[in-house]
């Protein structure tokens, strides 16, 4: 297990370096922040621009700038935003919990819905319940999340005045963004649960369990579910990465004060330190989650540990 962990850690570090290096390189192709900052000033000279660049540390070699950003992961000092000079760490400190709270709520919504629905569909295979669940989940899958978000705002905020259209302010404000993301996750997860359940239900030990006279719920939720947990957990690990990526759109629609909003604004204003740090933190988290998934395998299925 130690050797396996070490290897996976090295791989993870490599992935983070490659991702951040690519991002740091790419954002520098996208335009000059000094010009953005100076665009409102009348009669700005080349010397003024040079001074602004120097103030932002843009005159230093690319590698120096990159290493400074990377070191932020360890020192929690990501430099300052080009827009106004707020320390990036301060921005991330409020944005990250907001994003995580939303992501976990969405995951929870999805798990709470997809496991019973998926099992139901598998057990009632080919019956009307199965058909309905499959069709509904296909519809859920086909919604673009920004459309779903807009429709919910129209219905629940503007027409019914039940939920706040944007912002993170109390439990009610979680409902629409978490549902928007949760619905799409659920649609995929239901199908996943159904498929792996169908496989497991044909296995001999299920027949044995039933033959022993165990209650149907015990058979399904204890014996069968445990065995289809591996593909589920793997997929949810991957899904979490996608979730953090997809959150950008949803956060923007709901004006959620998270990492997505931060990244979006940073792109618009060529705010390198903010953009790089946000991507670095998010990619580190995605890599870490995948690592955790690998470890979780070992815990759930002893066969993997000994391999």
């Amino acid at each position, binding site marked *: 297990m130690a050797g396996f962990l070490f290897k996976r850690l090295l791989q993870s570090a490599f992935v983070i370096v490659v991702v951040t290096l690519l991002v740091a390189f790419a954002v520098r192709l996208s335009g000059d922040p000094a010009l953005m*900052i100076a665009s409102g000033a*009348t009669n700005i000279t080349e010397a*003024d621009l040079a001074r602004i660049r120097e103030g932002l540390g843009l005159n230093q070699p690319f590698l120096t700038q990159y290493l400074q950003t990377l070191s932020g992961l360890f020192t929690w000092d990501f430099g300052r935003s080009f827009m*106004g000079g707020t320390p990036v760490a301060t921005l991330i400190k*409020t944005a990250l919990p907001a994003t995580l709270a939303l992501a976990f709520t969405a995951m929870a919504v999805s798990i709470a819905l997809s496991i019973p629905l998926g099992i139901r569909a598998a057990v009632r295979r080919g019956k009307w319940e199965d058909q309905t669940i499959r069709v509904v989940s296909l519809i859920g899958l086909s919604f673009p999340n920004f459309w779903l978000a807009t429709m919910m705002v129209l219905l629940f905020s503007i027409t019914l005045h039940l939920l706040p259209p944007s912002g993170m302010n109390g439990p009610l404000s979680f409902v629409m963004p978490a549902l928007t993301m949760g619905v799409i996750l659920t649609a995929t997860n239901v199908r996943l649960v159904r498929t792996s359940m169908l496989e497991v239900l044909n296995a001999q030990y299920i027949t044995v369990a039933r033959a022993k006279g165990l209650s149907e719920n015990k058979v399904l939720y204890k014996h069968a579910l445990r065995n289809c947990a591996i593909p589920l957990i793997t997929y949810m690990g991957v899904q979490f990465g996608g979730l953090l990526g997809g959150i950008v759109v949803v956060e*923007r*629609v*709901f*004006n959620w004060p998270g990492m997505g909003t931060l990244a979006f604004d940073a792109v618009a204003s060529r705010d390198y330190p903010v953009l790089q740090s946000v991507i670095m933190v998010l990619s580190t988290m995605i890599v870490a989650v995948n690592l955790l998934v690998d470890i979780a395998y070992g815990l759930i299925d002893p066969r993997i540990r000994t391999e």
Partner: protein
Amino acid sequence: MRKTLTALALALTAMGFAAPAMAEGKLTISSPQDPGNWDPIDTFLVNWSSVATNLFEGLTYRGPDMVLVPGLATAWDVAEDGKTIRFTLREGVKFHNGEPFNAAAVKFTFDRLLGEVGAAGPQRSNYMVIDSVEVIDDYTVDFHLNAADPVLLTKLAGYGAMIIPPQYYAEVGDEAFNNAPVGTGPFKMTSYEPRIGVKLEANPDYWGGAPRLSEIDYRFITEPATAVAELQAGNVDLVIPPTIPIGMIPTIEANNNLSIVSTPGPTVYALRFNTRDGITADERVRRALIMAVDRQTIVDAILGGQATTIASFQGPASFGFDGDLAEIPFDPAGAQALLAEAGVQPGASVQIDVRGNDATFNEVAQAVSAYLAGVGINATIQPYETNVLLNDIIPQGKTGAMFQQSWGGWTFDYDNTAYSMYHSGEKWNPYDVDPELDAMLEEQRPLTDTLRREELLQSIARYAADRALEMPLYNLNAIYAINNRVKGFVPAPDSRLKLNEVWVE
């Protein structure tokens, strides 16, 4: 027991209903961007000003009517040569922290702006004409300039020239000042949450009288649809420019509680020509292309009437605007004749470069292209990423025959536009070299004789129009969406909203 619970529930409900009543006098505004810093010298953003105009004041003030009036200075006297300005300061004014406003504060503000601290920010370049500020007595200061600058008094009404309190600044330091600013304005800042919002409360000791609102709550909402949803849901009272897309105006107007209020803004739009190469190097061709396009129809059909057509690259609020300068009329037959005269064959093609993210202008460009097709010119539209277009394609002279330029300046002075667009060697003028135009541009710059300067600016506009240097399109309105419970609101063309006379019902 049940009775008690019922009573409690009723009481809670009553309190719930009472809450909005207590919050009377609170205005909630959706602002598209957090400037990230409230120090006047660290920012250039219009969205800074739309908040900070309520916190800070300058020596002069220019409100929504664009007229320059006394601010923290009650009077000023410009010396004959234009190089010294003596300001008489308003007495009895206090900063939000109780510190007195006086000549020392003025000197401190400009020493900081022109010194080391200001050198790191974008605002200093606007005020480089100021050589030094001399304190004459507690309420008199002299500004010594290294050249006469007719636009300086206007500049003193905004941004970097806002007067800050020396003691407070010395006590808290630069960084704390960025997040907790103190000025002399009608409102004080009570809280600031980066990227979320900022809250202000009334300054009861304001020299101009206590404001009518007790609180202003600004929320940073980037996405236009979200801002409009908040407005429709009644959580936001006012959405400030440039958020409201033209396409959403009918939706807002259909709601009885909401209104659209607009006024001509600072930004003008034009398609500028490559005057050096290709068919547009010929003045007759440029004129013909202008004649081929019906700008009024574009304004009515695409911009929902929220713009006015222009004859030169400026709007009516700009100093140097000439109401007598006539637009080149829409005349497709005349355009075809001119093109024939210039030897341009039907089917000739031009490329129009636009900013890819400007959806409205992309529609405008398509309409222009259709009009050009009407006189036998094939126009292709080439969208670029905004930064690429602005920082590479235009300055390097790599554009097509025509390219989008939208331009606005908070000083509303045509010099800012004309000099950048027409003077040889300027970043925004990659193609044209015209010594005569250069001379006119240079001549007006230092003039303190306003009438003479206005005359010269008007002749520059006429000259540029005669040479058909660009296809002037329109001056876009600054569009505000507002809840009808807000009273006394006057839209500011430049988003600098001072809200002390506004109230809510």
